[in-house]
């Protein structure tokens, strides 16, 4: 059978993985950005705190007096600024708006200072970006309040270095997160699609005759698909059953008129004196016989199809069954001077099987053998036990298979190319094959040495 190539609308797996990867990439990026931002603002807060402390340390040492403001910058004020890195430090101290010491061009805050805590701002100074803390104090000089501004600035290379380092770590973390999440998304995609694959495999593994509904457990998302599939199977199965029933009914309805027709034809044969008419009637009787056989086989087949679904197994002796069936065909064979060569084991060959099915199979085999054997031919029937297999071989001395394949000849309504002169429905070997398959056995046709064909059945014992 040729497998259909379905048009593909893309892979769910690929789509799933792609979407998960995009999601994970976005999350990693967000992670990286948030760590960077948080780290950056944390470092800035810390640096500001140190800068603010340095500024306040200077402001705390401001002293008033009679003749002016005493300014005594503590060593630690600047030393602490060197604690976190190697940043440049600038400062400026103004008394009543006039610079008294430090860097005269250090930018002032663009808003009035007030309160005890320093005001922070960022400016360009000496071709560097500096963070500036400014604080204002009022000092009493000669009973007059004097405004003193203390401004301390620091470059931010240490902060930038720390932030860059943290950003590196954040990037590493983000990449690691991405790698792990990517791996997990691969696994997720796989596990999500596992039920679909399982279902496909379960359905694909079914035999060609298996039209039972799919009862494989599936996730609820797949339930509609399975339900639809089961409905389809049910419709198909119903259609098949109707067809089989129709054939059986039709065969049954045809068989009775055929019997009547044959009886009347025989009466006509006896009564007729005209030799030409008698010959015609004999031909007619032969045709009716052939038709009856075909109808019988159709019925047989219908029965086999029905019974393979609902087998009634029992213990049977295959040897006895074979002997009985050969005995049944004895008279028909004698008519054509065909002899049987029977080789059966002495002990009974017991197996569990459906008796009617097996009978049907052996009957069809023997029928074929008789039908296709040459006049005065010999049909050999042998049964032997090999291990756990019973092997039944029926060989005729007919015209053989002429190269046709075993599988081709056992198809329904298939007939060999060299038998057009012999009447047959093409159902016989199909029945045999279906019965053997139903019992888990194997059926092959082979050429017999010296002409003729052999049918080889092996059936598991037990």
């Amino acid at each position, binding site marked *: 059978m040729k497998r259909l190539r379905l048009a593909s609308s893309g892979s769910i797996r690929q789509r799933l993985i792609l979407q998960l990867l995009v999601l994970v990439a976005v999350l990693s990026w967000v992670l990286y950005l948030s760590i960077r931002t948080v780290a950056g603002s944390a470092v800035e807060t810390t640096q500001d705190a140190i800068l603010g402390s340095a500024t306040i340390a200077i402001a705390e040492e401001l002293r008033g007096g009679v003749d002016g403001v005493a300014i005594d910058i503590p060593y630690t004020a600047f*030393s602490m600024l060197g604690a976190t890195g*190697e940043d440049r430090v600038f400062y400026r101290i103004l008394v009543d708006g006039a610079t008294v010491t430090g860097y005269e061009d250090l930018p002032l805050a663009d808003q009035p200072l007030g309160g005890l805590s320093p005001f922070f701002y960022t400016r360009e100074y*000496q071709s560097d970006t500096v963070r500036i803390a400014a604080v204002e104090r009022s000092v009493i000089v000669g009973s007059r309040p004097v405004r003193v501004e203390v401004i301390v600035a620091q470059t931010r290379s240490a902060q930038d270095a720390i932030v860059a380092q943290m950003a590196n770590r954040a990037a590493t973390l983000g990449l690691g997160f991405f790698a792990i999440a990517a791996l997990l998304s691969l696994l997720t995609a796989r596990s999500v699609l596992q039920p679909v694959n399982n279902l496909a495999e379960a359905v694909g593994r079914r035999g060609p005759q298996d039209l039972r509904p799919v009862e494989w457990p599936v996730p609820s998302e797949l339930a509609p698909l399975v339900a639809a599939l089961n409905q389809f199977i049910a419709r198909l199965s119903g259609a098949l059953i109707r067809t089989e029933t129709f054939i059986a009914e039709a065969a049954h309805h045809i068989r009775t008129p055929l019997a009547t027709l044959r009886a009347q034809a025989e009466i006509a044969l006896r009564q007729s004196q005209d030799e030409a008419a008698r010959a015609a009637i004999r031909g007619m009787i032969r045709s009716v016989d052939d038709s009856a056989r075909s109808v019988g086989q159709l019925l047989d087949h219908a029965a086999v199809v029905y019974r393979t679904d609902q087998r009634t197994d029992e213990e049977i002796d295959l040897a006895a069954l074979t002997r009985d069936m050969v005995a049944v065909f004895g008279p028909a064979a004698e008519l054509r001077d065909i002899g049987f060569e029977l080789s059966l084991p002495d002990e009974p060959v017991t197996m569990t099987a459906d008796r009617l099915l097996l009978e049907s199979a052996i009957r069809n085999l023997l029928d074929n053998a008789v039908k296709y054997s040459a006049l005065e031919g010999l049909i050999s029937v042998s049964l032997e036990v090999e291990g756990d297999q019973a092997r039944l071989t029926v060989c005729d001395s007919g015209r053989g298979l002429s190269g046709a394949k075993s599988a081709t000849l056992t198809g329904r309504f298939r007939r060999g190319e060299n038998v057009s002169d012999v009447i047959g429905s093409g159902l016989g070997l199909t029945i045999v094959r279906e019965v053997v398959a139903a019992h888990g056995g194997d059926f092959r046709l082979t050429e017999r040495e010296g002409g003729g064909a052999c049918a080889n059945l092996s059936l598991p014992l037990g």
Partner: protein
Amino acid sequence: MRKLILALGLILSAAGAMAFDIEEERLFGSGQEASVVSILSTTDIDIFEPLVVAFQAVNPGIAVQYTVASTTEVYRAVSGRERAFDLVISSAMDLQMKLANDGYAREHRSIETDGLPTWARWRDQLFAFAQEPVVLILSRPAFDGLRLPQTRADLIDLLRANPERFEGRIGTYDPNRSGAGYLFATQDARQSDTFWRLSEVMGGLSPRLYDGSGAMIADVQAGRLALAYNVLGSYAAAQLAGDPNAALIELEDFTNVLLRTALIPREAERPELGAAFLDFLLSGKGQTLIDEKAGLPRIDAATLASAGHRRPIRLDPGLLVFVDPLKRQRFLSEWTAAVVRR
């Protein structure tokens, strides 16, 4: 074999009078060299000569112009952009720090600078190439019968107990005149309050004030001084070597360690040559020469770690504090009030 050494007089050329004072200047070279590296330094030519000669042995194509000036003149020369130098060497860490902080130094990174401990460099602009303890030296005969002091507290006790012995025989730097003296005094004051007590006690004994270590050491050796406080250890060790009458003491409460530093000015005309000389100073060979020939202790974290009393003066912005003119004025007036009695 011997390099032809050209001694130049002060350059009073067409450029006009220099706005800063030069103490000494010499051009090392044969006149054949393709280029000249000019170095401004506070270190005497005699001390640096072996280094310059060794540098030229490795770099025969480079002549070295070596100019010596005082620490404050060195600072003025660079900050005032008086003349372009390719390397500036000074023992005044505070002034060097100020130059680097204010953007007068160039960044330089090399295997040699990366090999320096972090406390011996700042922003890849300022590099220490020698570490020198600041010591107390004394004349043993003057301390006859007394226990030699090991800490500043010991010294204060001895001076108080024996004023007659030490009257007029104590020497120390005048921070008003000497940049190194100012740095030592301010670092002492920063480290401990005993400095001010010591200053008061010394002030009561009519101390003699100097502006260089050499003279102090000579006076101790000659017996004119009983002790000299805050002397550069490297000079003292070299001059007092083998003198049984002199003792060199690293005070155990703390001993400041001066870092001699170098920087490449932003205005340098041949910064790559300055960098080459700097890398030579910091290289294994240069450091060995500094230690053995120049008599300046090499940069060595291990000796600092093994001697807990040695505190290297930190290359951090704290040094800027005492450079502040208001702060300087305040400190010097306090110091003068404590030490100089009328």
